């Protein structure tokens, strides 16, 4: 039997990206930093969809509801028991994973449109439960405040502005100062937005790294096998029902983390933060990313965040009325969704790869 060589986990790459993001966050304006937080939240949520839909072949329109479970778990624990933030996030993952386990057990008996419809019913039904339990705070929801730790950053005003071409030694030097004092010389002052971005970006990196390595493990392969041909996978000794439930549980846990982060960036948890439209845009992001391309989640997330801005510019350029302006983003997202499914059904990255492979195959055959 072919023994696969041990695959690299790419840990250094993820750490490098983290350091770059950290440095960047100190030099861009607050609006972009807060958009960065949203992108990070989307990255996490969309990667949970890719794991579930792209690899295990199950469609969920209910990930908005799973995000809500995570967000409520984090907020309630924070308010009622004053748990440390990090434990709140862990609890968010666990709570949503339990929800996903239950849903996954039902889902393993369903497929395709049945599963989509069932999770759709959940997405519409679950947020309304907030009104049933006083601890969840009804329509107003509960607050979820995550502020930066109480230190007064000593901003060194005299430090020269940093250029990206500045030499490595000075950067390392400054990094050391930063680690010691929590402030980068010459950087923008510490703010809540920056703190949120750091948390969200760190969470995104950790979950991307985890998802990537799960997908490349035996689990990932068994999911793909089950998606491709369920009977063949069963003959190969894979318990497809159990592997589907596992995929649902992991995916839900990741979605729960995204939900808690989303709540953090809004400051409150309420039913209106998790509308059906959220579940839809996650699916859109996953399809734009290429439903089986984990790396594409960054493209998908950036597009989702950029579309409202682009739509704004377009609407102003055309001088259109207010109702057009407010609905243009929705139209573009949905339109893109249809166009992508019709013309690049497996995502732009995958499409490019397939075309390249085809081209190379044609090339090598003509050589012979």
């Amino acid at each position, binding site marked *: 039997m072919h023994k696969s060589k041990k695959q690299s986990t790419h840990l250094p790459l993820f750490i490098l990206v983290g350091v770059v993001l950290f440095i960047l966050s100190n030099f861009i304006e607050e609006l972009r930093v807060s958009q960065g937080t949203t992108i990070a939240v989307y990255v996490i949520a969309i990667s949970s969809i890719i794991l579930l839909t792209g690899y295990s072949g199950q469609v969920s329109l209910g990930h908005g509801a799973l995000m809500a479970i995570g967000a409520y778990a984090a907020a309630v624990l924070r308010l009622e028991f004053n748990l440390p933030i990090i434990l709140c996030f862990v609890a968010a993952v666990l709570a949503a994973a339990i929800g996903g386990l239950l849903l996954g057990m*039902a889902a393993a*008996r369903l497929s395709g*449109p049945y599963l989509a*419809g*069932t999770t759709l019913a959940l997405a519409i039904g679950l947020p309304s439960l907030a009104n049933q339990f006083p601890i969840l705070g009804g329509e107003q929801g509960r607050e979820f405040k995550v502020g930066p730790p109480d230190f007064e950053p000593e901003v060194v005003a005299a430090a020269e502005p940093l250029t990206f071409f500045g030499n490595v030694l000075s950067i390392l030097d400054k990094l050391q100062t930063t680690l010691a004092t929590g402030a980068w010389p010459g950087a923008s002052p510490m703010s809540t937005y920056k703190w949120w971005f750091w948390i969200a970006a760190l969470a995104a990196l950790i979950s991307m790294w985890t998802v990537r390595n799960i997908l490349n493990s035996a689990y990932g392969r068994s999911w793909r096998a089950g998606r491709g041909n369920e009977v063949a996978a069963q003959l190969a000794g894979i318990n497809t029902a159990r592997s589907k439930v596992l995929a649902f549980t992991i995916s839900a846990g990741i979605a729960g983390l995204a939900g808690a982060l989303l709540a953090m960036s809004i400051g409150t948890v309420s039913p209106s933060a998790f509308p059906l439209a959220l579940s839809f845009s996650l699916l859109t992001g996953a399809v734009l990313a290429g439903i089986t391309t984990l790396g594409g989640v960054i493209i998908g997330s950036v597009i989702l965040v950029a579309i409202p801005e682009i739509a704004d510019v377009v609407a102003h350029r055309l001088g259109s009325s207010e109702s057009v302006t407010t609905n243009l983003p929705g139209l573009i997202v*949905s339109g893109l*969704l249809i166009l992508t*499914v*019709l013309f690049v*059904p497996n995502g732009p990255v995958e499409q490019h790869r397939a075309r390249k492979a085809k081209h190379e195959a044609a090339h090598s055959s003509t050589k012979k």
Partner: protein
Amino acid sequence: MQLLNTLLIGITAGSIYSLMAIAFVLVWRSTRVVNFAQAGMALLSTYFGYEAVSRLGSFWIALPVAMIGGAIFAALVELILMRLLVKHASSGPIAGVAPIIATLGLLGVIKSVVTMIWGGQDLRIVAPISNNGFTINGETLVFSPLKLLVLVVVMVLLIMLSILFQKTNLGLALRASAHAPEIARLSGVRVDAVRTLGWALAGAAGAVAGLFQTVNGNGNFSPDSIEFSLLLVSGFIAAVIGGLDSLLGAVLGGLFLGISISFVLMYVSSGLFFIAPFVILLIVLFVRPQGIIGVKAGRRA
């Protein structure tokens, strides 16, 4: 009396769900797609109906206008979107989810365009007759002439539909293409045209469901009204309860769902309005996965 009230409200709501479920079943039988844009189509048709009411002043003209508008739109969707979809996205990992994603995208497009044209505010369609309850022996029922009308119109449409399916050549072609498209094609049935017709019928059924859901509520509607999300979910659940393949099943599923929800709201808690359909669906899927009138093939689509 309360029991009777609950039952009658349930039957009225259920008959509207039945119509929506029929729309799902017609589309499923003709193209093996669950059309999540059905609610969007119903919404668009309701706006057609609103335009007709405000221009021509009569609900009775608006109803057929909405039905015809809905049918034409649904037929166009099948002709353009669905055929492209079959051509482009029928292989690879996306194949299983492509129709779901495409119809969801269509739902979003319809909703945005409708909001751009008519605005996001509440519009109002006035019911043709009173929604004040009948009075029997001095007690006022919740059941009203309007609800009776909804029930009667839905029943008439269902009878017309069943005559179409059971007694006409067209109905035979519709059934043949659903059950064995290849054999139907060989016997000279124009399967593609029949598919489009299936979508058109579904569009008309959805239009009636949208209009009645609106007037059966408070008469107000907007692109964001939760009524249409509810119509989508309830119609889908009703269709699944009925087995997704059977028109009779869709009707029974709709009535079952409507009555169950009505009883849950009355006797358990009125706050369970949105979660009740989900729970009922789960129970049905676990207890009787093939649906009330389903073939024993399980839920593998």
